[in-house]
């Protein structure tokens, strides 16, 4: 039953994202709190619900954003897949894995957004999008990943009653 904490937690993350984080731009970009949360959660040891979290978080963001609903959902699912792949290979270095997952996950979501916007007829230069929006967003996401990882590790310890080995 403790896994159900994902519902209020991810809802809270969405509220903070819409009300606060999206109002603090760095150049043209800003942090993706949902992505960072999902990345930090999926890299926790013994966590088995990262797919559920990704689906719920993706639906929440897709519902609230003007982007097509499947773009954030697809991006988060791809990021979790990458995360599950990495956690088996470089699990000894969770912070390194976290940075890799957040970096690549942000790129995946942004590239998916750029592609879908271009396909729907929005006119802009991809180079501008990458330099003005993607690059600052990447930096902010990586910065936020540092505190997010220990917070979600504590949550995983609480949910799965595991010993904190780190």
């Amino acid at each position, binding site marked *: 039953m403790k896994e159900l904490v994902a519902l209020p937690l991810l809802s809270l993350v969405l509220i903070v994202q819409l009300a606060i984080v999206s*109002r603090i*731009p760095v150049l043209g970009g800003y942090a993706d709190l949902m992505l960072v949360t999902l990345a930090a959660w999926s890299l926790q040891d013994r966590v088995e619900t990262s797919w559920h979290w990704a689906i719920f978080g993706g639906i929440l963001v897709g519902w609230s954003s003007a982007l097509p609903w499947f773009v954030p959902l697809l991006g988060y699912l791809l990021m979790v897949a990458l995360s599950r792949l990495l956690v088996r290979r470089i699990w000894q270095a969770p912070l390194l894995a976290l940075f890799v997952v957040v970096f690549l996950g942000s790129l995946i979501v942004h590239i998916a957004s750029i592609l879908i916007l271009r396909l729907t007829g929005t*006119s802009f230069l991809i180079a501008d999008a990458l330099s*003005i*929006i993607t690059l600052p967003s990447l930096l902010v996401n990586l910065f936020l990943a540092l505190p997010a990882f220990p917070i979600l590790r504590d949550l995983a310890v609480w949910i799965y009653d595991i010993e904190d080995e780190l």
Partner: protein
Amino acid sequence: MKTIFPRSLQTTIIFLVVGGILALALGGFFSSASDSFGNSLISAQTWVSERYITIRDFFNAPNDIVSLQQRNAQLESEISGLQTQVIQLQQQLTDTQVLAALVDFSQSSPESVYKATSVIGRDPSPFLHYIIINSGSNDGIRRGMPVVTNQGLVGHIDAVIADAARVQLITDPASAVNVRLQNADTDALLAGSLTGDLALEMISQDLEVQEGDVILTSGLGGDYPPDLLVGQLFNLRKRDYELFQKASVQSAVDFSRLEIVLVIMNFKPVDIAPLIPVETP
């Protein structure tokens, strides 16, 4: 030892001597001596009194410090409460000023019916320029309604749920608004961008436009009512090899600080899509 004088005479002499001394003292003849004595006495008393007060304070001081600390904490608590009140009142004052400006604006355009609503968020995607307002279909908000502030055009309603709605800003890269230049009396197209800058396109090469020209909505296309203030033209770019002139637009609205906006309730956008001819194979 045998006394020379009888006892009654001794008593009389002592009384006379004492009485004489008192009479002399009262008459001021001993003033210097009494002053010296008094000063010595007062000095001694002062010294003793000061030592006593010091010793008494030494023993009573802890109680005073505790009471002072309690009083200090109480006063600090009151100060923080008052500071909170000041901040709340300042916020209320700011809101009141914004609302007063909006009321002035709505009174200046009595033909429109406005609904004031708060901005509660922004789109989670940094590629889009949308805001979320806390009024929805329960408040009569419908898709396509224009959104303004007292400063000018903000955008239009893009999606609605029961108690909230999403507004596409005119700065969104997918936004295009038909506008007219007030001085040149010509139409043009206002386009948003990723960075939130506004660009004016489709200005004929033949037209003489100047920086500072006021830009208003034209009403063409049926998306917005005419004559809503958009901004001012600046940074005009005219090249001979291009079909149209281009310019940047300084918006009248500060989109980074949107807090309260007005939805124009009595404007129904016209969908002209059926009128656009479709190529038949």
